[in-house]
């Protein structure tokens, strides 16, 4: 009986924590509203730090795309990231590929670049 009560307590703790964590990540990654009680300036610092880390990883995984975009890489990536927060379970390489695809769809990258990557990927 005590164990059942404990498990119920735990599942309500999980629910409360889940909504708080989701609210924070939604604010940091998906332009959601600032959760109550947080320092807004620090939320901004954290938001920029997470974006910068993600941008750096995409740059490292797709140097050809970053080179091709040059100065446009950063503003374009930041625009892409705001509309496409990384989903749980997705991989960094998928993020890099989705960004390149998004750039092509926006006309920011020529289609031919795709063929060039295939050349230096093993196949």
């Amino acid at each position, binding site marked *: 009986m005590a164990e059942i009560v404990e498990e119920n307590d735990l599942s309500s703790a*999980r629910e409360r924590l*889940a909504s708080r*964590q*989701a609210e924070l990540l939604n604010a940091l*990654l998906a332009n959601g509203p600032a959760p109550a009680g947080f*320092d807004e300036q620090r939320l901004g*610092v954290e938001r920029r*730090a*997470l974006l910068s880390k993600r941008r750096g990883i995409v740059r490292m995984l797709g140097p050809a795309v970053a080179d091709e975009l040059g100065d446009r890489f950063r503003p374009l990536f930041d625009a892409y990231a705001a509309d496409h927060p990384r989903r749980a379970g997705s991989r960094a390489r998928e993020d890099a590929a989705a960004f390149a695809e998004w750039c092509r769809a926006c006309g920011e990258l020529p289609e031919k670049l795709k063929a060039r990557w295939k050349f230096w990927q093993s196949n």
Partner: protein
Amino acid sequence: MAGIKDLGVGIGWRSEIDLTVERLPGVDFVEVVAENLHIGHLPESVTLLLERGVPVLPHAVSLSLGSADQVDLHRVEHLGAVAEAVGAPMVSDHVCFVRAGGLDSGHLMPVPRTKDALDVLVANVKLAQRNLPVPLALENVAALLEWPDGELSEGQFLAELVERTDCWLLVDVANLYANARNIGTDPERFLDEIPLERLAYVHVAGGEQHGDIYHDTHAHAVLPQVLEVLDELCSRVAPPGVLLERDDNYPSDTEIASELAAIRAVVDKHRG
């Protein structure tokens, strides 16, 4: 079980510096990022280190044990498999959450220091421990922001976690320094509050001050102030090991060697 003893001074093995790690003098142990290894084909450099008898400790970054969600046992299983593949005496991850609400932050986010968060963390850690072949050590993370309603200090939170799960602690002195700068953690109080007899080993890393924020980048030199926190820790306990983490913007072998030497000097100063 007794803790792991006398690991010495080590460095985080990364594929970008594999040859550096192999030829640097005075690398007593290494850590590998578990998510980057594949069972069945370990990097040749890691195999070489194992053949030399260098302990290799798997360090995970994605278990998200502080998440409200249930633990992803596939990730735990992979960590355990890496531990077995390298014959590790211990594995580690962080006191943090990575994913929530279907999103992935790509980073080690701090958990609120509340009873709810502690209860969930404890349950997740216990489940992970039951599914791991070796003991688990958990690391304090660097935070850029503070949850509004913390009920415990960082040290009290970790002490409770150890008390309730019997996990080991991996104390990152750079993260401790970062939190002192950014969210007002008192490093001495932190070291007073955690059970030092459960210290597995210590991390040291570099970072950079931007305005009023210290960023734990692992891409810059180790600050003297971080070595001072290590010094403070060593004045209380002889750490079983101390490991340098460098993840980007890799410097020359000479610079890495001198950072390792600086770490060793601090550790040796306290050994009679």
